[in-house]
């Protein structure tokens, strides 16, 4: 009885490994190259990089892009923020579409100041056209703003605030047990 169980388990493990390996090989063949992202597309990630860099720009300290805020948002969109997946897909496409019509360029190709102006229009709820109806401009702007702040100023364990950059910038030691202040990731 015991022997049989052991054999079964070993066979099961062997099969699972083969299975997983097989899947991995297959997916590599099907969509090369593998995306480092969980939810967003490669193109969306470039747009998000530009957006989060607008919310928290690089100055003497790294900005949203280098702090991994895009990674934070991507990670949360397959976790607690799964409910915002649709908003992101729709909102990112709307920004892309608007920029193409208005400037014949991608958002991330615009000069920094023009990007800022674009987001200020969104923030004020003054975007025109069907894509932005019912206050979606304002709403999507707030989502990006709040999520960027969370990614930059929240714990690195969630995928942003790379190397504790915001904590270092604010001169705050983490973790916070007095006498044991140190950074560890």
């Amino acid at each position, binding site marked *: 009885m015991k022997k049989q169980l052991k054999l079964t388990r070993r066979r099961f493990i062997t099969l699972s490994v083969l299975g997983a390996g097989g899947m991995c090989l297959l997916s590599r063949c099907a969509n090369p190259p593998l995306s480092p992202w969980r939810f967003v597309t490669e193109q969306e990630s470039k747009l998000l990089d530009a957006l989060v860099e*607008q*919310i*928290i*720009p690089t*100055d003497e*300290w790294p*900005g949203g892009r280098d702090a991994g805020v895009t990674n934070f948002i991507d990670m*949360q969109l397959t*976790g*607690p923020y799964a409910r915002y997946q649709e908003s992101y897909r729709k909102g990112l496409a709307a920004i892309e579409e608007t920029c193409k019509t208005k400037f014949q360029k991608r958002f991330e190709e615009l000069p920094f100041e023009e990007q*800022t102006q674009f*987001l200020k229009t969104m923030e004020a709820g003054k975007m025109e056209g069907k894509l932005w109806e019912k206050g979606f401009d304002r709403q999507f702007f707030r989502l990006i*703003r*709040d999520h*960027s*702040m*969370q990614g930059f*100023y*929240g*714990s690195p*364990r*969630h995928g942003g605030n790379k190397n504790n950059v*915001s*904590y270092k*910038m*604010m*001169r*705050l*030691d*983490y*973790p*916070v*047990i*007095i*006498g044991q202040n140190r950074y560890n990731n």
Partner: protein
Amino acid sequence: MGNKHVNAIVVGAGAGGGIVAKELSVAGLSVVLFERGGWATYDDTDTDELKSQRTTVLGNAYGPDDQRYKRVVVNNDGSANIVLPSEGGYNNNAACVGSGTVSYGAMAWRFMQEDFKLKTTYGPIEGSTLDDWPITYEDLEPCYEKAEWEIGVAGDATQNPFGAPRNKPYPMPPFSHNKEAKLLYDAAKRLGYHPFPIPMLRNSVPYGGRPACIRMRTCCGFACPVNAKCGTHNTVIPIAIESGNCELRINSVVSEILVNEQGKITGVTYFDEKNRKQTQTADIVVVSGSATETARLLLNSKSKFFPKGIGNENDWVGHNLQGHAYTGAYGIFEDEVYDDLGPGASVAISDFNHHNPGIMGGGVLCNEFIRMPYSFTGIRPPGSASWGKEHKAFQRLNFKRVAQAVGPYQEIPNFEARVEVDPTVKDFWGIPVARLSGTRHEKDIEGCRLMSEKAELWLKEAGAVQTWQSVGGGKGISGGQHQAGTCRMGNDPKTSVTDKYGRIHAVPNLFVADGSLNVNNGGFNPALTIMALGFRVGGYIASEWSKGNRFK
């Protein structure tokens, strides 16, 4: 196999229920203490701001979870939507052993004598169900004392001339002030106010077999890594379990109070940790689920004897929901006022708690707990950028220069602010969810303005070079961690839900022991009052039981 009949069921292992379970089990009654959550420890939750009790954007580390729980919130325009526990509108407390007492800021306030006599003190107020309590401060004083000594409070009552009279000092000396609190302490003295150290349910010295506080920044909103914060999870609940008479049943969701063919309460039904529907019978049931969940359970317990829910003959269950309107001001100082000595709040003034011309009540004003990096991103003077270079520079330059003076303004009870059960929306277990509606009393904003003005003056005197007010008390539902009032106690069954011992009118063996009982919510954080009420209700049941009363 069925569950063994016990003497008492306590629903909810929070500030009220944990104490009742201990009072009853130590007195010899057999008890089952139900808790819908599990144990929440520091190791599980850490210092992660985005999952803390104050910022739940990535979930509630102290429960409940977004997957199984929801509520319906009715907006001011009459529209309604489903809200998850991690969203602000849910008005969450916590779902774990100890409930809010694991992660709270742990301020340990006694209400004032006037708080028990608001109607006598201020007269009737239009549009309010303002009333006196059926008990006085003096009736509750011995229970406050028990809470202070059995759970553990650090403070110095002699420094607060407005505090209610007391028989015994606090068991532990007060905490020292950090840099910001010292500035505010001196400023209050110069203004002729009466600053004093905030009483805290936190060990300033070793107490109760647990060590002294290590002054961490991450305290309010987090569990304590060294167990220096005093809650029911590390004081009375372990005592109850050690008595051998109390079984703590975690991850168990009570769905209904059972009524037999004679109309008597016989126990509860609940879903166990494997989501199996179970029955537990008992001689007595005590509900301590917090103002929202206690009302929901009573309203969900419908039968031919109680067609509108238990205790709801006169339609008072769930009404008069109130939390606190937080109101105050911010100040930016030229020099840094931040020295990283946590948890931050330590100085208070009670000079504007009652007897303010033109407004009802008032509240205590305190320096605030240390703000976390993400929550600070929302703290800016009016008109400031909420993103971009300027916002980032402010974060860097001013995080250690900003102080806040703020307090809980005592809201005017409003009958229309209420908890119902939703007719269609159900939770994971199929139990109808709570539906929150109504708003604060329209006059609350006036009191909040006055408090914010006082807070701003205080910050200016302390040296703030730029100040701005954050005025609370606007429209919307007020519940949250301070939720109270939905099963208020009273002498008249037509205008209250329980008698002065927390017993549901006309039901001999069903009690409530949590903030639901509060007739009003004081100008203070209500935790110690909820604990005192736990001692009152639990003590009453235990003493009657020892005299042979079986509450039949």
